[in-house]
């Protein structure tokens, strides 16, 4: 097993420095911010568990060759379909999915398909009733169809912009 190599330590130090500044200049709000962090962590812990399990299932069932076939350079329409579907049904904040995408990326997942996944997340099935309530059914259908069209377009453009040698 490889040694654990943490990512984002500098970013975390920067945020800790911000917290120190806030605690100096606005101490009253620190408890409120900590409460928010606590409730966010509680809310997304089940999502983290889901992401870790999903990544394990993908690692277990999909060997690198299969990931390349489904999500690599020659994945075609299947790769687009699976990543759009994944984006639509995935829940929780985007950053919760970074470890899984990062892991799949190391096994050949195309950048264009990562962009597909990220943009398709704008279609949020549990929130569709809110959208229908706010904008009406025709508008909701139109917007979501456009989201999927533009998710595919965005993926294609990203693949054109990031050539293989640059990856």
């Amino acid at each position, binding site marked *: 097993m490889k040694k654990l190599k943490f990512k984002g330590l500098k970013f975390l130090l920067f*945020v800790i420095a911000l917290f120190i500044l806030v605690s100096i200049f606005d101490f009253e709000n620190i408890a409120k911010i900590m409460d928010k962090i606590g409730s966010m962590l509680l809310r997304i812990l089940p999502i983290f568990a889901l992401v870790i399990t999903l990544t394990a299932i993908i690692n277990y069932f999909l060997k690198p060759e299969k990931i390349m076939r489904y999500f690599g350079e020659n994945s075609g329409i299947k790769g687009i379909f699976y990543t759009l579907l994944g984006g639509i049904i995935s829940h929780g904040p985007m950053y919760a999915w*970074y470890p899984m995408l990062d892991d799949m990326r190391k096994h050949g997942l195309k950048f264009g398909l990562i962009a597909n996944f990220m943009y398709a997340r704008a279609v949020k099935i549990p929130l569709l009733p809110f959208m229908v309530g706010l904008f009406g059914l025709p508008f909701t259908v139109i*917007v979501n169809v456009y989201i999927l069209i533009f998710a595919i377009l965005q993926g294609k453009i990203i693949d054109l912009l990031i050539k293989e040698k640059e990856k």
Partner: protein
Amino acid sequence: MPKSNQQPTFATAFKKSLMSFLALSPMILAVIGLVALFQTYITPDMLSKFFGHGESLDILDGTVVGAISTGSGVIGYVVADGLKQQGVSDYALISFIMAWTTLSLTHLPAEASVFGIKFTAYRNILTFLCTLVIAYLSVTTLRLFL
């Protein structure tokens, strides 16, 4: 591509998955901290003051405000509902919702650290442009048919 003819056990796959997650945990904690800071200092009332400058400008305002805001999708819709009550245009509302769900300033450092600056820059610029276009096209399409 790594060669792997041996099927790993599920325990090995799970451990590997857990390690990948733990490796990114400092970044995830940092994003959560930043989101909490934004939610404390940038309130829905402050956001609503950005709107009401005409439909075209409202699309841009909606996109920018959605991008700098943070929170779950439900909160985004609650804020959008409040904005609608204040008479904000559909153009602005849809660009706001789109930007809320697809763009996030607080996630940028984490995204760049995981996927690289180039991918992050391209994706976020494209997402910003797509949000403007989708908001315009959606309202225009609806007006064509209804």
